[in-house]
């Protein structure tokens, strides 16, 4: 945290890109919250309006963000590390695919029928599995089938949750 004299004498510069980015991120979020809550009445202390706390919290967030950004110029800290897009795309993409296919959806001309868990389940496992660098296709396919059967038995039958299995094939 602390700097020695030589380092301190070199004046202010960005000493932690991570903290600077974190500070700016907090300020941006606070800005968004302030924008969204701008038309909510603040009210008075005696009768607090719906806008008072969101605005107050947002201002505190902005203040903390400013402090973080300011500190990043004074103290040494971590550098901003790179993103792993592979993980983001496959892992989060898999979850989105599950959400879209489990009961089907319609966005404009795009129509996906209700596929149910027997299709969505393996899709999640296989798509997300691709995120690992040491993925083995045969292994993940077998694992996907086994996991889906296991989950179907557990969630649908043992726990009795109303989750569609394969309405287009089995009618349930």
């Amino acid at each position, binding site marked *: *945290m602390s700097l020695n004299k030589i380092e301190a004498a070199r004046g202010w510069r960005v000493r932690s890109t*991570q*903290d600077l*980015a*974190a500070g700016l991120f*907090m300020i941006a*979020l606070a800005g968004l919250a302030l924008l*969204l*809550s701008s038309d*909510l009445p603040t009210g008075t*202390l*005696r*009768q*607090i309006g*719906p806008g008072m*706390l*969101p605005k107050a*919290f*947002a201002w505190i*967030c902005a203040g*903390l963000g400013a402090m973080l950004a300011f*500190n990043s110029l004074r103290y040494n*800290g971590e550098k*901003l*590390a790179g993103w*792993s897009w592979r*993980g983001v795309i496959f*892992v*989060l993409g*898999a979850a*989105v695919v*599950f*959400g*879209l296919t*489990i009961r089907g959806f319609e966005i404009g001309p795009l129509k996906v029928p209700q596929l149910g*868990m027997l299709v*969505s*389940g393996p899709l*999640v*496992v*296989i798509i*997300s*599995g691709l*995120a*690992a*660098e040491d*993925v*083995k296709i045969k*292994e*993940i396919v077998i*694992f996907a089938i086994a*996991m889906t059967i296991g*989950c179907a038995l*557990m*969630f649908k039958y043992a*726990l*009795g*949750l*109303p*989750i569609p299995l394969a309405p287009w094939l089995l009618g349930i």
Partner: protein
Amino acid sequence: MSEMLAHLSLGFGVALTLKNIALCFVGCLVGTLIGVLPGVGPVATIAMLLPITFGLDPVGALIMLAGIYYGAQYGGSTTAILVNIPGEATAVVTTLDGHQMAKQGRAGVALGTAAIGSFVAGCVATVIIAALGAPLTKLALLFGPAEYFSLMVMGLCFAVVLARGSILKAFCMIMLGLLLSTVGTDLETGQERMTFGFPPLSDGVDFAVLAMGVFGFAEVLRNLETPEARDVVKSKIGRLLPDWNDIKQSAAPCLRGTFIGGILGILPGNGAVLGPFASYTIEKKLAKDPSRFGKGAIEGVAGPESANNAGAQTAFIPLLTLGIPPNAVMALMVGAMTIHGIIPGPQVMTKNPDLFWGMIASMWIGNLMLLIINLPLVGVWVKLLQVPYRLMFPAILIFCSIGIYSVNNQPVDVAFTALFGLFGYLLIKLGFEPAPMLLGFVLGKLMEEKLRQALIISRGSFMTFLERPISAGLLLVAVIILVIALLPSMSKKRDEVFTE
């Protein structure tokens, strides 16, 4: 005293029904199973397994969730000893000596000591909860909105001070959690707040969606990036039961650990985290030959493990008596209780005594079960540790996806969770530790409600928080700990404690 016994017998009556014993058993087993997997801590485990309790009645659901909680906690120490990976913050200390013992071929003894120490701590903690539950609940009934508000402020201050990493960043996370909690329809005026005019948001951000996104998905993304070096112990596990010498060496540390952990666990704001660290430091100070620590000293396993378990259990006290969760795991419990239609707080004990005392009694039964399941099943857990992460995380994903979908039967929720996963990943990249955010999020709504009530009663005067003695005292404590933590000499010490 007789009142306490009557309560406990009511509790055991509830907990000892065949169904509840079975639920407790399943909870402990599943919790340990998932907790053993490296990279899946108690928060993620409970978030993931929340849906499997949906079909149960509230008492059964909470008994099972509590079982999952201490199962996961216990599983975390197994991983710490055998693989040198702490499942979560409190197991860090166990890796120091536990893993060394395992390397010396005494893995079995380390696991056995941890299990027995946890059991002893669990028994004591259960009695403490039973003894303190009723008086604290009576105290809580004296609390007005102002006191509640100040208590939550104090809890959040503790959470900031005790969080890992930078204090400023922990503060940011709490405030972000509070800000997120204001999204949705305002309860008093019915006005929509910060919803982008998007209907699914008018009920606010769903708790399960936030928790699973930030602790399920984002954790997977974090783990994928850092391929862990798994240092699974190759040598034999060895005998499990400690011999007479081991018992003599570990009995006193175990009792001291229980005491320290139990007291720290009651503190609002994640005091339980401190228990193992404090216990380890004390054992090292008291030892005749401190140089043995870090090289496989059995006291270094017995003390912190007992402290860990005692703290994990007494952390239920603020939740059950005041309705205020002290850490992220208890925040999840609040979420679970709300899903089952129970509002945590002092009224739980009077309105649902069977739930309150049943849960407490089941904690003792759960601890006994952990002892019984864990020791013979160690071999299974070791096998489980060899499951590669490339298969583990797709399994986590399908579980989370089905789970989130089942909360409201809303496919949109799964996509929302992915969005929060991205958000959580961004937070991790920016060096934030997301656990305090969940706490802020859960306390936010309650804090707003109490703040409004307090100000209506005081006719808009903020002085009410300082004029009422209990409230002023709580705020004073909050200020004192913040000041102490920000003192330069203390912040250096704090860094040492968390990096040790």
